[in-house]
Structures are given as structure tokens and as C-alpha cells.
């Protein structure tokens, strides 16, 4: 990813505003930008959701496919999370295979979905050792205005929650795919919340300009019950010990907000 040079005057401005508890767009330090969630946008996908956080726009498509399990987990379905930072989304994204940022994002979102037990992978097994459901989660970044991780996780979770999977009839080693569809074995609504540190201030939902000047970021993944299922520190800076706890407390409250947002669209 080619780096876009950000001006030093901008960093100063952001810090000065943070001193007064405000940000570039007038938000408070712990406010999200306007969030919108729309599901069922791609008919060919088994589930889909477009999430906007401010101008950041993420489309996730879910596809369920029958295939072979991994040899070390023969009785479990397969979960595969992939993220594409499309060149459409930013002048700094180049076409080609996912770079380290896209890979990190995919792996963190995978972690929060997997470790929260959101999908009961054992129930996704059709013929033990031979045939299982593969869940493909493809995250498509359409417009980059910061905080891709939180928006991607929200988009992936919304797409999964609203997805349907074909009904099957399994007789011995034969799997018959039926014409009806059911809800997949999904419980739990995990969320990711990223806290950015700029100078000595902790900010929620950093926009692109704030991300370009941040020292460090800490992303927390929460299960529905408030327990942690993923943590990822990003960027080359550091968090003080107290800041880690402060960030955790802010993130915990914010994750509830994201969950309510999902409920408000019926998920």
C-alpha cells in the first residue's frame, strides 16, 4: 500500500481539537460517525451486507459451498475470511493480492467470528471426514475513510446474521441439497471496536486523516456476553499500561452500541 503523505499541520490541528474534546468533523472523542447497515443487497450471495461508517463503505458477501474439511478438524465446517482492499477505495490501494494490511484485517475478523463461536462449525459437518459446509466470507472495501476493521467486522457479522443456507438431507455418505433454505447455525453477535491513540488522547472510530497521524491503535473483539474473544494492537507506536485499561473500558461500552445498531435493523 503506497503511503499518502499527511501534513504535519493536520496532526497539530487534530491534537488541538482533541484538547477541547472535539474532532475534525465536530464529533466527541468517543463518538461513532453515522452508521448504516443494509442487508440482502446481492441476490447471488447467500448473505450480504453493506455497512457505512461515515464514508467508509464495506460490502461483505457470504457464500456457502460443500467441500472437504481440513484433515485436523474432520468433523467441523470450514470458515474462510478474505478481505480485498479494492483499488476503487483509495488512491493508495494497488491492484493485486491482499497486502499485509488486508491480511491482518481478514485474520482479525476471522478471529472474532471463530473465537466467539458465532458459527457452530460442528453443526456445519455433513459427512464426518468427507463433506462439510465451507463458509466463505468475502469482505470488499469499497471506500476507505478510516476504521476499516470495525466496519468490516460489522459488515461480516450482519451478512452472516442475515444469511440463509440450503437445507440438506444426508443419508450415509450421500448429501442431497434440497430446494428449501434455512437459517445457518449462528448464535452470538460479536463486534470489533478500535481505539486510536493520538498524542495522549484516545479516539473511537478514527477517520482516514486521524488514522494517518495516530501513534497506535488497539482493537478489541467482544462476544455478545461482554467477554473478549480477540485483541489486536496495530501501528508501530505504544500504549501506556493505564491507557490499555482505559481503552478497554471505552471499547466495552462502544461494542454495546454496535450491537444495538444491529438490533435496530432486525439482526
Amino acid at each position, binding site marked *: 500500500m503506497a503511503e499518502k503523505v499527511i501534513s504535519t*499541520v493536520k496532526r497539530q490541528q487534530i491534537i*488541538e481539537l482533541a484538547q477541547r474534546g472535539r474532532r475534525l468533523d*465536530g464529533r466527541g472523542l468517543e463518538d461513532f460517525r453515522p452508521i448504516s447497515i443494509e442487508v440482502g443487497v446481492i441476490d447471488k450471495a447467500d448473505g450480504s451486507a453493506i455497512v457505512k461508517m461515515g464514508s467508509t463503505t464495506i460490502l461483505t458477501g457470504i457464500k456457502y459451498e460443500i467441500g472437504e474439511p481440513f484433515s485436523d478438524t474432520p468433523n467441523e465446517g470450514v470458515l474462510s475470511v478474505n478481505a480485498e482492499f479494492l483499488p476503487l477505495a483509495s488512491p493508495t490501494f494497488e491492484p493485486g493480492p491482499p497486502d499485509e494490511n488486508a491480511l491482518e484485517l481478514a485474520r482479525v475478523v476471522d478471529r472474532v467470528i471463530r473465537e466467539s463461536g458465532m458459527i457452530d462449525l460442528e453443526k456445519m459437518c455433513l459427512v464426518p471426514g468427507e463433506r462439510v459446509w465451507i463458509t466463505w466470507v468475502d469482505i470488499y472495501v469499497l471506500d476507505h475513510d478510516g476504521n476499516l476493521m470495525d466496519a468490516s467486522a460489522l459488515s461480516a457479522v450482519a451478512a452472516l446474521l442475515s444469511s440463509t443456507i440450503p437445507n440438506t438431507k444426508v443419508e450415509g455418505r450421500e448429501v442431497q441439497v434440497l430446494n428449501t433454505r434455512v437459517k445457518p447455525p449462528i448464535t452470538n453477535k460479536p463486534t470489533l471496536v478500535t481505539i486510536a491513540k493520538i498524542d495522549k488522547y484516545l479516539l473511537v472510530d478514527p477517520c482516514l486523516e486521524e488514522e494517518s497521524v495516530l501513534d497506535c491503535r488497539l482493537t478489541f473483539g467482544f462476544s455478545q456476553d461482554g467477554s473478549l474473544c480477540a485483541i489486536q494492537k496495530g501501528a508501530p507506536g505504544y500504549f501506556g499500561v493505564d491507557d490499555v485499561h482505559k481503552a478497554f473500558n471505552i471499547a466495552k461500552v462502544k461494542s454495546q452500541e454496535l450491537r444495538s445498531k444491529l438490533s435496530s435493523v432486525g439482526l
Partner: protein
Amino acid sequence: MTIFFTPKQVVAPGDLLAEGDYQAGENVYRDGKRLYASAIGLAELKNKAVSVVSLRGRYMPKQGDLVIGNVIDVSLTSWLVDINAPYNAVLFASEFLSKPINPAKEDIRKHLDVGEMIVAKILAFDRTKDPALTAKGRGLGKIKKGIVLEVDVTRIPRIIGRKGSMINMLKKETGCQITIGQNGRIWIRGKTPEDEAIAANAIKKIEREAHISGLTDRVRAYILQMRSKS
């Protein structure tokens, strides 16, 4: 000789504008006897020239233009500056520093570094080479405080206003100093960040509503409303 549009009509690329002995102005091209629009904008006829005032454009450097740039790279004797154009600009040390320096002994980054912003003038530009800048002179140099805003370059004339009417009103009502770069970047410095934010929002409002009449009064009312809130 025929004209195929009404004054201030919105036209799109490929629209037939005129036929006959007219001149092809900006965003208009000639194909035989016919003149066509090459951009989205408002068509107009001035004397015998048909042109389209573009509603959306990229800044093309012009000699003498005042621009606001962002330093993106540095070499021994020059800086590479992003001026929000298809081409990056070059600023030689001699066009910024008051005294000549020895590049072998001194690092020019001490004086201007990557990430800093400058107000400069375009010395020269032709399409075979990158534009050359100068930052020496009154009102030119490094930007040390304030905020820099980016707007669509086609709105700059509207932000200035006829004979500066709009920009002067902005300066007066917000109490800010405002420098307008022809490349769509505007530098605002006020007494407080709140004043700067009001000026920035007022300019964004002009950018959005540029084509609607009565703009100057609406913007003034908006600023007064914002000032009474804070």
C-alpha cells in the same frame, strides 16, 4: 450558423452545441463544422466563442498561479510537492531559502521537511516537464498553523466572488485570514479553532450550493448563526 443550447444549460460530453463559424472555447471541441461539449457543465456563448464552464475538474497548473502544496519527497537540492494536480511540482532550494547553502554540508530538510505545507507560485509549466515553483516572495512560504481545506477546483471563482465579494465577506464575518490556492486548496487561520471550523464549513457550503443564487447572503446568515452558537 446555429446554436443548439439555451444560456446556462447543463450539457454533457458529446452534446452538440453549435454548427458554423464559432470558436471552440474551454471544454468544447470541433469536429468539422460542428462544436461539441467535452465536459459536464454550463454552456455559454461569449462573443463568438462557445465554451462550457465545467462543474467538475482537475487542476491544471498555470504559470503565475498561487498554489498550496504538500511536500512529499526531498532530494539534495529540491523538494517534490503535491499540488493536487496530475503532475507533482518541483521546488528548488534556491527558490525557498534566502541564502544559498552547500547541499554537501547541510540537509535542506532542516528548513522544509516532508509533510510540511507551503504557499507557492508556479514559475513555469509546460507538459514536457513537471511544474516549477517559487516560495520566495510576499505571502509565500511555509504554513506553520491554521487549517488547509480542499475543494473542487471549479468552485474557486465562486469562493472568491465577483471582485472578491464572497471572500471578503468570509474574512470579515469569521475574523479569519484566508488564502485561496488556485489548485483548490484554501488556508485558513483564525484566532480560535472554532472560528477556523466555521470558516471551513462556510466554504464547504459554497462548494455545495455554488450554482444556486442568493448565495452570499445565505452564507453570511449561516456564519452569523454558527457564531452565535459558539
